[in-house]
């Protein structure tokens, strides 16, 4: 039975949801509005300007941080997807003991607090005399991404018909061919969502990157060190652009998944 919202109850519900949304969005909207403010003040509006955006794109430090962020996210997601997918296929065919053991290791890595992952990897890199920088940050990102890929691919492997692989072998395919032509296409949705998850987690990471690099900075580290020195409208401009990109990415993903559902 469908009841129509009416009266005080319905109004109260909408007002409450509106208030929570206001709390969630007001700070971000203020940040965005003040990225177009002509004065450096955060309390007074002195007219519209794009100066902060122009400054942003002339700042070579910020541009190189953007490059580092994207490079680490793409490379990290690709490597983690390859390692994680191979790992999931291997784990899936293991016995009870091996399966439990390696899934627990993956779980442990997901449950370890970021700060502990960060400092423990920093110890490892310094222990191995690896210089902290782009490479160490990439290694750390691949590491924290792998479990997310594993847990997106494993359910697809479980749904798959276990005999399809054996049938391919019986029909004369080599194990490698059977895997690439039969198994991988079947589990592709899991691989893709694992890769997207890895990419977004990597874009967003601050804590683990902070401990595993020194001079090479990504955007999060840059925002952190700028914010510690005080407010700067250039960060507002940068934040606005990051917020808008996340919004666009989410809307595209949302469209994509609803298109798939319709198909």
């Amino acid at each position, binding site marked *: 039975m469908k009841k*129509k919202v009416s009266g005080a109850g319905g109004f109260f519900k909408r007002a409450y949801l509106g208030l929570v949304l206001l709390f969630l969005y007001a700070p971000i909207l203020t940040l965005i509005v003040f990225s177009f403010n002509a004065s450096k003040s955060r309390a007074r509006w002195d007219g519209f300007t794009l100066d902060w955006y122009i400054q942003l794109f002339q700042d070579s430090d910020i541009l190189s941080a953007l490059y580092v962020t994207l490079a680490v996210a793409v490379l990290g997601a690709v490597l983690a997807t390859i390692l994680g997918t191979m790992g999931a296929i291997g784990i899936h065919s293991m016995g009870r003991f091996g399966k439990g053991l*390696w899934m627990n290791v993956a779980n442990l890595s997901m449950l370890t607090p970021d700060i502990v992952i960060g400092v423990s990897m920093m110890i*490892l890199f310094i222990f191995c005399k690896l210089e902290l920088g782009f490479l160490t940050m990439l290694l750390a990102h691949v590491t924290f991404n792998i479990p997310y890929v594993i847990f997106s691919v494993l359910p697809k492997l479980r749904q798959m018909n276990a005999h399809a692989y054996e049938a391919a072998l019986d029909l004369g395919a080599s194990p490698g061919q059977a895997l690439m032509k039969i198994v991988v296409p079947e589990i592709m949705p899991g691989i893709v969502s694992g890769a997207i998850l890895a990419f977004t987690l990597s874009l967003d990471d601050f804590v683990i990157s902070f401990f595993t690099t020194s001079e090479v900075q990504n955007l999060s580290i840059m925002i952190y060190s700028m*914010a510690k020195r005080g407010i700067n409208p250039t960060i507002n401009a940068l934040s606005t652009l990051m917020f808008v990109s996340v919004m666009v990415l989410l809307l595209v993903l*949302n469209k994509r998944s609803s298109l798939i559902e319709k198909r």
Partner: protein
Amino acid sequence: MNRKIWATPFIVWMVIFTLAPIVLVLIYSLTDASGAFTLDNFAAFLDPIYINVLLRSIGMALLCTLICLLIAYPAAYFLSQKDIDKKGVLILLFIIPMWMNFLLRTYAWLTLLESNGLITSAVNRVLSLFGVQQEVRLLYNYGAVLMGMVYNYLPFMMLPLYTVLSKMDRSVIEAAEDLGANRAHVFTRVVFPLSLPGVASGITMVFMPAVTTFVISRLLGGAQFKLFGDLIEQQFLFTGNWNFGSAMSLVMMVLLLVSMGIMNRFGDKEGGGVL
């Protein structure tokens, strides 16, 4: 079955980059600067200075979790009901902040609360209307850090609550109503108990990052305001005492694993409820 060998690169990677670092932390925590075995690092942690910071972190994280639960539960409950207009858009609006960089969310509050920020200047203007000349400071105190935490982690409480409430079988609620329960009874005896798995995973998702954060306290609490995460960061990046830092990292890991264990007893038995 030789398909197991496909896992080899993954296994090698996990051993080197996940297990080895944890073993190194364990070794560092149990040795002194010269490498000899000692329990001094853990003993040093028992100093009231550090214990107080640990207790403050746990207390703040618990308070933040409670506030998030109190704000998010009604919101998720209203959102899960059928009679709300434009539900899809609303749900998306609640999810978007989850995907926003948390530094950005913290920074947004920094700009509002700093001494000539929008909120602070508005509060001071109102106060001066009432003849109060003293300027209030809203940043760099306990309240600012707590506020930043609640703001950051609220969406993590919303989502699991909404998921469990919207999947709830409506006919169970109707059955309770037919059997004569009033609205309060329906909620306390039926809806709330059935939503406990969502409450448990929401609590885990908020408590875990809240108790380990060092960024929110650094940006909104200032250099003097220390949480457990700040202590660890400080030992590794400034003091350079890795042995003591490792001991604290282990304490943090054990604390979290124990609280996860406790929450899992109440939570989702099917597992995978954390994300």
